[in-house]
């Protein structure tokens, strides 16, 4: 029987496939059926925060920063409460990262301000002497893509039943409404910022990437 398998490529391939697929079937597959339950109080991202999250992904911030506080005293002392599964229920994709070249950002919104981020993103070493983080000046000139962020929010709402527009949850509404909400939200951030060009652009109706990513980072709590 064994030798027969070794000479019949088709059945051999089927055999190999069964053996390698088996681990996935047992460990990963069952959990697909159980969609991760959000913690009470965990909310999906607003459109502006989602646009900021896209900036975070675009520049691969997750290559150097984790968003996963492990349950050790040394980590909770440094970064805050350890992470819970439900807190990630609306994270598509997850951004846990695999390397901490820089510190964890899971709860960075609790201890950094808009103003701090603005200066830090422009020139990290001015806030943290010795920092090896690159400066992200282009975030001050690139415009955030609110449209794609809305498209994503709309998609997860209609395909995965993410509870936008429900009681106590962020409003999504139509594209026109979402734009208004995003601008109102951005206004609060821009008011706290100093950069004249970002303010000028905002007056013209453009939301720069830096505004969106700060909205996202502030939402990480």
């Amino acid at each position, binding site marked *: 029987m064994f030798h027969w398998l*070794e*000479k019949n*490529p088709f059945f*051999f*391939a089927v055999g*190999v*496939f069964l*053996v*390698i*697929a*088996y*681990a*996935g079937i047992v*460990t*990963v597959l069952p959990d*697909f059926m159980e969609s*991760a339950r959000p913690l009470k109080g965990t909310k999906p991202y607003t459109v502006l925060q989602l646009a900021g999250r896209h900036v975070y*992904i*675009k*520049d*691969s*911030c*997750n*290559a150097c920063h984790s968003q996963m506080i*492990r*349950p*050790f005293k*040394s980590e909770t*002392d*440094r970064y805050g409460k350890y*992470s819970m*599964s439900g807190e*990630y229920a*609306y*994270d598509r*994709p*997850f*951004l846990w990262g*695999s*390397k*901490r*070249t*820089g510190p964890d950002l899971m709860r960075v919104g609790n201890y950094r301000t808009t103003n701090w981020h603005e200066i830090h993103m422009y020139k990290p070493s001015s806030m*943290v002497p*010795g*920092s*090896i983080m*690159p*400066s992200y000046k*282009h975030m001050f000139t690139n415009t955030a893509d609110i*449209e*794609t*962020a809305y*498209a*994503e929010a*709309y*998609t*997860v709402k209609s395909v*995965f039943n993410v509870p936008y527009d429900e009681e106590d949850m962020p409003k999504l509404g139509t*594209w026109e409404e979402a734009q208004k909400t995003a601008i109102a939200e951005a206004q609060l951030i821009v008011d706290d910022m100093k950069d004249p060009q970002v303010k000028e652009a905002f007056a013209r109706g453009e939301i720069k990437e830096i505004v969106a990513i700060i909205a996202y980072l502030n939402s990480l709590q």
Partner: protein
Amino acid sequence: MQSSNVINYDYTIAKYFAIATIVFGIIGMSVGVLIAFQMAFPELNNLAGEYGTFGRLRPLHTDAVAFGFTLSGIWATWYYVGQRVLKVSLAESPFLMFMAKLHFWLYIVGVAAVVVSLLMGITTSKEYAEFEWPIDIAIVLVWVIWGIGLFGLIGIRREKTLYISIWYYIAAFLGVAMLYLFNNMEVPTYFVAGMGKWYHSVSMYAGSNDAMVQWWYGHNAVAFVFTVPIIAMIYYFLPKESGQPVFSYKLSLLSFWGLMFVYLWAGGHHLLYSTVPDWVQTMGSLFSIILILPSWGSAINMLLTMKGEWGQIKENPLIKFYVLASTFYMLSTIEGPIQAIKSVNALAHFTDWIPGHVHDGTLGWVGFMIIGALFHMAPRMYKREIYSKKLIEIQFWIQTTGIVFYFTSMWIAGITQGMMWRATDQYGNLAYSFIDTVTVLHPYYTLRAVGGALYLLGVFMWAYNMYKTMTASKAIEFEPQNASPMAA
């Protein structure tokens, strides 16, 4: 089909892929050296505006070496080894030849699209699966075409039993196909919402589930790109170059099934102390340790193949590459399980020890094996002897030094960082701020970058030697049975 005495093996496609291997190797590793220097000297991030920052280049480095250099190397050897151990020539089937060419060119288009999109910042953020859905579709297509070529060639073979290398190529094909499909399940947002960027998509899985699928993929992409097909190579090239049959063919078969079964369970070790279920973590940890058995089964089998023939290691630089490759395979397959033990992982996770471990495997095992394999193929493909033996010797020692610099500095850096993160003063407060743990690493980052640069230098020497072999070396009359001919 019957007149086999006038048919020759057709290496056209193997040559294409060999050149692609060299080109992508240079690109991917140059980017790697650049980002290594960026970590020591952050001003280097400003060379090309937003396109030159570490964040943009890091995925480009990993994907260019994994899916550019390594995949090309795998396919170069497949289109060479496949024909030979099945005893059938690609030239015998115009259809398979056409598929092979299509495979190559579609793949090149795919890689070009990857390079451009990653520089633009178009990424899904999932490690080693950063590509957005249009590229995913192209990759699936390339994979299916390779599959048709793979099973097609097996279908017209003269050798009844499949050699162990073929087993591993089949496994690589199946494994990557399964993993890639499931990890890249995503919904293109444009088609649902009718607005936004057309290439943008959102993952089907959220949070902890997404993490679990990603590391089931991420870990096993390592298995089926960096391990399985490389074992396929060593099972062919080491015996062929040395003239020694595999020490124990039975052991090679057993290790195969062991590896196939055990590898897939170990993905959980990337998620220790995270929010995925505890039993998944424990399972990942446990199976990582079991994984030593089949891994060492293959590696020891390779070393024992050289039993009584160790003199060759002095005479033949290619044997040096193969033997060191299997040694590094042993090193990284013992290092990995150690890091997967929960208490060790608590210290090592998120630190530089992890990239250190990865590079033990990729530089030492994958890189050396591919370099050695292409050197072996060159005289047979181009009917010329290798241009310079001396250059290979120098290259070998430069690259080995580079790897030693790399992993020693990363071991020290990783453990230093891990210890400093958890260090407390006498009152139980954290002893160091985060930036202290970054600045302390500067010398190690510098040393690592130098190590990487040495390895890259070796790659350039390899490229030069290969180029000269193709164009300017002395022609040979007939193909050598074993040891590759090389000019001093």
